């Protein structure tokens, strides 16, 4: 790094603070990044649903343009107003940038005790189709049909991403999670594509496991799992199950990979309107997502530094937000992490 000290390349990241506690946890992350001298320049944008020409719902042009240029986004929680007439903001973002892979690394946090220790796995969820196609019909009164869509293309794409991820992150194995014994055609197709892609990644071990077996084994011994790849619904359930193992959504990072090189990292907890603006929020989830973002960008040194500072603070237990069992403010928790980061220089 010393040889590069004359040339600092700042990477632009589109920052979407979000609603509720979003703005304050975003501020916390920016402060910590500044203390760490991370070469990031933030471009803040808001996303709301607006009706574009032709009546289609879309996000504001400034937000889209910023993302298309920077390719990297960090996002806080967005509220989904009921009966607003438009789809959820998360869905809109997903469609706008074709965010096809939801990636959640779940690692036990030393110092934040849960009944499970040594968890170190990654769930990779296909995020565009499957059971969330939104295609439902009332056939006759009292009979509803919901359609789960599995395509060759989407299955191949997610399988490829999973194996690439495993390779790039030195993970030993990828497990496809399915229920092809019952859903032979759909999950069968998904499984087939995973098997095909596995052929091109002989350095990664490939296994298959029924969803129910994964659930059964996960709560008994999560250490047996490494990278898991699966269709939408199973991914939704398992990624939350695994978040529960390490302490919940308040400490779990998440990343969404899109086509055209776009990646948006986000905290997956809610907007917590009851504590918004009171300096009580826990920025850990957003911070760890930002760390994930740094790794994605190849800034591993910075990522490690910030992550260590965060984990050390939690392990030390002296300055913790309420949800982590302490009674410090968000700004105090943030300040502590900043101090540690600066001490590491």
């Amino acid at each position: 790094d010393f040889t590069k000290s004359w040339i600092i390349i700042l990477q632009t990241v589109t920052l979407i603070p979000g609603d509720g506690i979003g703005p304050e946890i975003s501020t916390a992350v920016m402060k910590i990044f500044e203390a760490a001298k991370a070469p990031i320049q933030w471009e803040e944008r808001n996303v709301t649903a607006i009706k574009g020409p032709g009546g289609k719902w879309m996000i504001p042009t400034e937000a889209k343009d910023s993302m298309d240029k920077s390719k990297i986004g960090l996002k806080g929680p967005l509220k989904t107003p009921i009966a607003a007439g438009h789809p959820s903001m998360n869905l809109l973002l997903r469609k706008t940038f074709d965010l096809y892979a939801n990636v959640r690394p779940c690692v036990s946090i030393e110092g934040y005790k849960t009944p499970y220790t040594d968890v170190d796995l990654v769930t990779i969820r296909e995020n565009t189709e499957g059971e969330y196609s939104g295609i439902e019909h009332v056939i006759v009164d009292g009979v509803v049909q919901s359609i789960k869509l599995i395509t060759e293309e989407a299955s191949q794409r997610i399988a490829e991403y999973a194996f690439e991820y495993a390779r790039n992150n030195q993970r030993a194995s990828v497990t496809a999670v399915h229920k092809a014994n019952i859903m032979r055609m759909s999950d069968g197709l998904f499984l087939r594509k995973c098997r095909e892609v596995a052929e091109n990644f002989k350095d990664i071990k490939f296994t298959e496991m029924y969803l129910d077996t994964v659930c059964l084994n996960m709560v008994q011994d999560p250490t047996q799992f490494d990278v898991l790849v699966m269709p939408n619904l199973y991914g939704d359930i398992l990624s939350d199950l695994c978040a529960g193992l390490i302490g919940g959504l308040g400490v779990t990072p998440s990343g969404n990979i899109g086509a055209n090189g776009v990646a948006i990292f986000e905290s997956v907890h809610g907007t917590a309107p009851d504590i918004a603006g009171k300096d009580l929020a826990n920025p850990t989830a957003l911070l760890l997502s930002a760390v994930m973002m740094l790794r994605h960008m190849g800034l591993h040194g910075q990522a490690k530094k910030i992550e260590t500072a965060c984990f050390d603070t939690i392990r030390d237990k002296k300055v913790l937000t309420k949800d982590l069992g302490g009674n410090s403010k968000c700004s105090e928790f943030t300040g502590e992490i900043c101090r540690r980061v600066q001490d590491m220089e």
Partner: protein
Amino acid sequence: MGDCALIKHAPPPAKYGGRHTVTLIPGDGIGPELLTHVRELFRFCCVPVDFEIVSIDSKSTSDDDMNNAITAIRRNGVALKGNIETNHNLPPSHISRNNILRTSLDLYANVIHCQTLPGVRTRHRDVDIIIIRENTEGEYSSLEHENVPGVVECLKIITRKKSLRIAEYAFNAARQNGRRRVTAVHKANIMKLGDGLFLQCCKEVAAGYPEITFDSMIVDNTTMQLVSKPQQFDVMVMPNLYGSVISNVCAGLVGGPGLVPGANYGKDYAVFETATRNTGKSIANKNIANPTATLLASCLMLDHLRLHGYASMIRKAILATVSETRLHTADLGGQGTTSEVVQSVMREIESKGPRTSEQI
């Protein structure tokens, strides 16, 4: 622990001098050996049950075995089964045999009671959850098609009739067993029509049970809650697929697949098996499988036949055995064998002394 059948069903009448005939389907993997132990135990205890063994060859693609099994169960009304393996590389026309059994006999309620057992070390304590899973529709409708190459549609069917039926079963079970709360598990925020209908039906049924609290929870949050605070749950009701997820999570929480029995109830028939329906292929015929779940399933069956005396006697002996750490099988972290466990159960029963007909 599951002292009595959750809902009083009318059992088939005992014919031929008070003896019942029960269909036995050995299945694959560990099924055959464990069910042999059940027969051994029943003989030892002089249980008035005769087993009619019907084998189903999972390798065969003909329907004959299945039809025989279904006919036998229709005749006897009750069955005890091991899991039948499904080769998921066969074409979609080859439907899971277990699934066919459930739908043909309309065994609409899969009931699983997950309870922390004394002597079994788990991460969570005081778990006592009854799971009531719709067993015949939902994602398991086996309706799939590929209209365009590379694009597959899989239909999930939710009907008002079956949703009301399972909700009614759940609330009735809660009431009969003095349970306080029923939680419906769903994903109606995404599957607004399908799961929305299910939820609506649960709400309607709940209105008829004012003494029972009804609430609902989204399935992904439910799994997160289960691994952190499972004690908050009482009775849970849900459609088919979520039922598979939740019952496996809960079984894992209380000690694993070797411990929890399961029951499948229909209006006219009842089939008993382990809760998590595993074939256990890798541990078959090695005398290391945990027989507890299967033995407890046979007790559920005895309760269903109103042979409560035998059921209690055997169940007590099983629970005494499972609390003995030195007898724990590999799945519980021990080195005990299947036969050691069964022997211990028999010794436990014997030590209680001979029974008179009044006690049974």
